[in-house]
């Protein structure tokens, strides 16, 4: 949590020596609070003050990076409990468990399945982020062999899960360049895992059965020189895990309590695929930094990825669709032309209704900065001029033989002016999208 100028002032020498270039210590403190200058400008600051200030300037939940390059997964650095308070910043990673007890061909099949999981939605490509290879066999060579197959078969980020540090060291040496997340499964071996993570500058996940243990383990890891830490709470049921995630996040945010200021990794326990999906969605909505699942079937993974996309949308920034002509059904040059804004929900709702009317139609989304119809109209982003301009320049005139357009009922007030300046005949449609099906069926 950020310190105020006064909090910082209390930690400064208060001599007003001006060596920092500011006329008083208070002025310097204010500038520091606004991040306009840096603490090293003060040659007299004590070591304790320096440490206190540095730790206060860190985000309350640390940003952790797994992997490298364009694919890398960043989690943590969250600032709120509820998305309406600001937003959720770093979408939770979604990954798959690959246990090294699988045969080579089973692993290859899993990798192929995972590689095929790529979907496009509202203009974004969504796909899973990592593969977690687990040393279930307890066999060092088997673990290494599995890691190698995964490395060869995918460009995915990697997490390595094991109890034995020698097996882990072997696996790490195979994929160090991908900056894997090292998951220590057995807290008895934590010291060796800490050394391993420190030596390789790798992120380390500590496995614990409750919050107290987690705080001790992260403190120990930090002391041992590991910077990037992730918390894995095991042996709790669904509500127990969600409760722990909430408590850890809230305590880190509200009290700036460092030992809990790390993202979490969550493994599903359910074997039935439907319940596993439900469990994974619970973790994705409630504070997990990474969710690892077993099922790779696309009809399960897709809704999970879309849930993450929805929850991590910025509530202050509407999701937009490209302003253009959308063809719904087998359109002809006599099909109706409907105009609306490019707010994605507006477009999808209208498109859904047009589809269910079974009347092929063109929907033109005007560029209205992604606002809904009424908001855009009030903000003068959806005006007669704008619609006229769009109708005459977007290319629809070459696609239809008529000059009739339907506008949303909420902006019926625009119809006169729009007819006058565009030369199109304007029909006023229903106010709500739910009326479109009936409207189109009676439309001539």
């Amino acid at each position: 949590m950020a310190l105020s100028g006064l909090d910082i002032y209390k930690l400064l020498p208060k001599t007003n020596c001006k060596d920092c270039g500011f006329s008083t210590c208070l002025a310097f403190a204010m500038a520091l609070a606004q991040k306009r200058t840096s603490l090293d400008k003060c040659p007299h600051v004590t070591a304790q003050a320096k440490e206190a200030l540095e730790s206060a300037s860190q985000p309350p939940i640390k940003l952790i990076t797994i992997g490298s390059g364009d694919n890398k997964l960043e989690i943590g650095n969250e600032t709120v409990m509820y998305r309406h308070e600001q937003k959720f910043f770093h979408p939770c990673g979604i990954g798959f468990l690959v246990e090294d007890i699988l045969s080579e061909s089973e692993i290859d099949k899993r990798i192929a399945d995972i590689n095929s999981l790529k979907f496009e939605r509202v203009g974004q490509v969504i796909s899973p982020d990592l593969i977690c290879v687990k040393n279930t066999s307890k066999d060092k060579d088997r673990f290494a062999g599995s890691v190698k197959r995964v490395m060869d078969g995918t460009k995915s980020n990697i997490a390595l899960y094991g109890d034995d540090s020698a097996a882990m060291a072997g696996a790490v040496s195979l994929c160090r360049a991908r900056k894997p997340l090292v998951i220590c499964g057995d807290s008895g071996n934590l010291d060796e895992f800490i050394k391993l993570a420190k030596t390789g500058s790798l992120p380390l996940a500590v496995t614990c059965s409750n919050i107290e243990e987690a705080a001790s383990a992260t403190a120990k890891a930090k002391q041992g020189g590991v910077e990037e830490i992730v918390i894995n709470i095991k042996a709790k049921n669904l509500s127990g895990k969600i409760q722990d995630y909430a408590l850890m996040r809230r305590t880190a945010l509200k009290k700036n309590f460092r030992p809990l200021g790390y993202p979490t990794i969550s493994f599903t326990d359910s074997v039935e695929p439907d319940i596993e999906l439900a469990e994974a969605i619970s973790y994705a909505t409630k504070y997990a930094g990474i969710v690892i699942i077993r099922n790779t079937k696309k009809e399960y993974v897709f809704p999970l990825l879309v849930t993450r996309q929805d929850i991590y949308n910025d509530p202050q920034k509407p999701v937009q669709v490209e302003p253009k002509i959308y063809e719904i059904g087998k359109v002809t040059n006599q099909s109706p032309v409907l105009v609306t804004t490019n707010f994605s929900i507006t477009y999808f709702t209208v498109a859904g209704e047009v589809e269910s009317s079974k009347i092929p139609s063109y929907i033109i989304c005007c560029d209205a900065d992604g606002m809904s119809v009424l908001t855009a109209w009030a903000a003068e982003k959806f005006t007669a001029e704008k619609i006229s301009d769009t109708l005459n320049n977007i290319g629809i005139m070459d696609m239809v033989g008529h000059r009739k357009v339907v506008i949303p009922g909420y902006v019926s007030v625009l119809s006169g002016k729009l007819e006058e300046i565009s030369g199109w005949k304007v029909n006023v449609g229903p106010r709500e999208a739910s009326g479109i099906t009936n409207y189109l069926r009676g439309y001539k």
Partner: protein
Amino acid sequence: MAIDLVKEKYNDAINTVEIGPSGSKTVKVGGETTMPFLFAEGGMPNAPVVALEVLDCEPSDWPESVKKSFGDSIKTPVAWAKACVSEFGAKILCVRLQSVHPDYGNRPAEEAVATLKSISKEAGVPLIVIGSGDDEKDNEVLPKASQALKGENCLFGIATQNNYKTLTATALADGHSIIGESPIDINIAKQLNILISDMGLDPKRIVMHPTTTSLGYGMEYVYSIMERARLAAFIGDKMLSMPFILFVGQEVWKTKEAKEFGEAQGVNWEIATSVAMLQAGADILVMRHPSAAKSVMKYIDMAMNK
């Protein structure tokens, strides 16, 4: 390490609404004193419930994948309702009086009410009863339906800011609770609860519908409105302390993701939307596909485990 964890403890609770005549089958919803499933911080005395949706006529615009999962029973409303209870485990049903709608048969109100009465008698579980979506026809059929089920303590809907008086008056007269709907807008939700209470209906007889949207179609807007309303209720806003109902099935089965990529994905879309809504504080989920409903009931049991 002893840690002073920041727990949220609230003084105020969500209202408890009872549906159904008093007895062993009464369904209670609401009563929470915590955000969903955070049992170290407060309680959820009543588990969220799944209501399967049945119509008073064979549905004409439901996807085949949903219809066929009910078998032949879906052709007759009473048989359908009974199957929902005996085969698919529903402890409460939502009957939509679709047949009176001008586009879906335009049948006389009396016919719809007769069907509803038989469903009530034969299914033997508490009922949620909603209109067809056509205001004019609903203002005719709902008072008759309400009277026919007098004393059954049903949950009737849907009241909106522009059309709440008829429904509130009939609920008052016949002893039912009602659903108030607002367009993803916390202020209108509150305003409507005030308007309905001002007519004399006990606020503990109101359930809020914050509007439902499917996963991928703005689900997160509803999610956040629900969280905001809940948090306001917990710190004392009595006019937002009503339980939530979400019509998940109705919205999910409109989307192409549910309809066009195989039955399993549709079922999962309904499960995913439902679970997200439960995590935002849903008390009643009205669902369509029996497999999705079954999975969500199982999930609720698991999540309610302390």
